[in-house]
């Protein structure tokens, strides 16, 4: 690896070059004092430089090997989906929230973002026999909105549904699988992190690396919500932007490496246009964030019912849903749109 590849200021790279250090290996085994002498710089600068070399240079990040699109096609067709339990929405999504992708849930307060997130943390655990992902979930709660009690109620409703499905199909294997599950088991497999500020959120996401390496069965990471801590405390716009970028980068890496689904909840904000004195509701975190996700689901109200609108990722369309005691469900007589 060349010195110029290191994340160092160009002036320092130039100094290294002039002193004859062109590859990282040249710096191997040199002490900070020696380097300071060679480069005519202060020892503290030299030791900082070496620290940067050690952290970046000596371990080149290995990009995963190439996969052919044919294999990916196979994976896409046969990998499990995380069902939303709203049939019309699952149809739009091609069976549910896909693995290996970043999905954004955005909507006005109280429309059901958290409800859907909690439910996904449960439906990701649906056993393989029922064509589920049979995985565990990580729930990063930034707003204190995860309610174990609510999750428990939804878990019981989900189990009732599985029992009924097995019963209808008269499938003994399914019935046995459903009977062996308890709501408490489902809750055990939701790993909740409660974070209190943006720095903690970033640290948590980074440390997930180790957690996911230990727990290979995790198939879903929920961040509810990404927006909250970035809307205060991080007043420096550039810093905020960078932190958000690092967050997405880490999450999308996990998504591919551990083939899991990442669901990020976003808030909305009122954007006032001074020129025309009009205002509109838009997803928070700005335009550059909008690039981060592969699938965008906008939850909003339409004529008194809740609607989930698929805006990015697949053919756009919308589906009505309701939030009931059991969780997020289809409405009785759904109208569905393909935006035609």
């Amino acid at each position, binding site marked *: *690896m*060349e010195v*110029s*590849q*290191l*994340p*160092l*200021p*160009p002036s320092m790279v130039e100094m290294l070059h002039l002193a004859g250090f*062109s*590859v990282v*290996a040249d710096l191997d085994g040199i002490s900070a004092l020696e380097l300071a002498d060679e480069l005519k710089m202060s020892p503290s600068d030299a030791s900082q430089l070496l620290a940067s070399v050690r952290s970046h240079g000596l371990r*080149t*990040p290995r*990009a*995963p090997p*190439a*996969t*052919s*699109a*044919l294999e*990916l*096609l196979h*994976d*896409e*067709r046969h990998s499990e989906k995380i069902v939303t339990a709203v049939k019309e929405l699952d149809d739009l999504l091609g069976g549910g929230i896909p693995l290996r992708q*970043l999905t954004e849930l*955005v909507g006005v307060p109280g429309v059901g973002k958290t409800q859907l997130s909690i439910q996904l943390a449960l439906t990701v655990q649906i056993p393989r026999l029922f064509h589920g992902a049979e995985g565990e979930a990580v729930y990063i709660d930034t707003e204190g909105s995860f309610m174990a009690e609510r999750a428990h109620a939804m878990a019981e409703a989900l189990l009732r549904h599985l029992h009924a499905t097995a019963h209808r199909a008269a499938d003994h294997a399914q019935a046995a699988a459903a009977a062996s599950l308890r709501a408490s088991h489902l809750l055990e497999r939701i790993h909740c992190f409660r974070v209190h500020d943006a720095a903690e959120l970033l640290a948590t996401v980074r440390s997930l690396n180790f957690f996911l390496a230990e727990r290979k069965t995790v198939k879903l990471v929920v961040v509810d919500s990404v927006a909250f801590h970035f809307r205060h405390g991080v007043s420096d716009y550039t810093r905020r932007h*960078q932190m958000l*970028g*690092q967050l*997405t*980068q880490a999450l*999308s890496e996990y998504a*591919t490496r551990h083939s899991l689904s990442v669901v990020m909840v976003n808030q*909305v904000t009122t954007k006032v*246009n001074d*020129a*025309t004195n*009009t*205002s*509109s*509701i*838009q997803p928070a975190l700005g*335009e*550059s964030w*909008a*690039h*981060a996700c*592969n699938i965008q689901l*906008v939850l*909003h109200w*339409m004529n008194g019912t809740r609607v989930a609108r698929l*805006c*990015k990722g697949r*053919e*756009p369309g919308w589906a009505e849903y309701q939030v009931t005691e059991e969780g997020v469900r289809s409405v009785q007589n759904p109208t569905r749109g*393909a*935006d*035609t």
Partner: protein
Amino acid sequence: MKRLLSQPPVSAPADQVAAVLPHVRRIEDFVSRAVVSESLAQAIAAPHLAGPLALRQLALDVSTQLRPRLERASEVYERQMAQDTLLKTGARLLDEALGGGVATGEVTELIGPPLAGKSQLAMAMCAQQLASTSSRVLFVDTCCGFRAERVYQMMGTVAHKMTREQRKERLGQLLVRCATSLLALLEVVDQLSSELAAGGGGGMRLFVIDSVYSALIGDHTNISCSATGAQVARLQQSLRRLASYHRLAVVLINSAIPVSSSRDAVLSGSSQAPLPQQVVGCHQQFWRAALGQQWLHTADVRIALRPDPDASPELFPIPHLLSIIKCSLSERNIATADDCISLTITSRGVHAEMRSTQRTLDFRC
């Protein structure tokens, strides 16, 4: 490359070279950056190995052989004409506007805000390329956005005569690599260039990165000031070299970020508000390409995309507007100076039609 291939193997004593640099067989092996800089430097700096003098001679030889030579412009032109092809995008009108398609040996950049159809267009290009030849295509996915199913679907439209098995076989020629950070992206580019230098690559003509912005999003704010800047510059250089040296069509996707005024905007048009029901007023928005001024020099051809501001957000398929804002050949510019191409993305693929528009583009950036 042909010039080098005809040269004899390295002139230094073969056993000595093999002892120090076991993987160096031919001059071409030196082309790979890693060998020239790293291994050779190490080898020369290791006096306990046999024949340091011979190795110095070797280094000299290599640099002589790799030294560029003066050539007649006519020769270069003819060689390029013979080597280069134009890859179809799949949208006929866009191909025409581009003078036949995306040229190999050039870097083409697709720029646009979210939901502008950048990835769709890139995947359409892949589908078109796979349908027409059996050569390899490399797709670098930095944001988990690649969908094999979508490419397969588009191939079905382009090559309706192909059987499913044939299509799947061709799909096997499309290689996808993930690189979520700048360093990983650099590594992928380096690996590709050494692979191509060694004669591999399976006749690759198309190389796509979707998107450069996502790979840089974690540290790209530092671009102008320091370290990342150096790495971005290297990426820029590698990509350009990759295109011209190996006659690849390099297609990059870059994001557009909103700017407050039209002064430094590169394309104008209203942003498609994701909450169509709640928009009270529609406001004009201006965009410019992300990654700063320096990055603008990367691409030979720049294509700007955005959702059609005049279209109803309820409309499906969503129409996109496309315009060519930089082009290496002047004749291609003329066709699109005032006109936009309206690009429709359906489940079948991308379809382009001409559209006269009042919104002229701002070329200032």
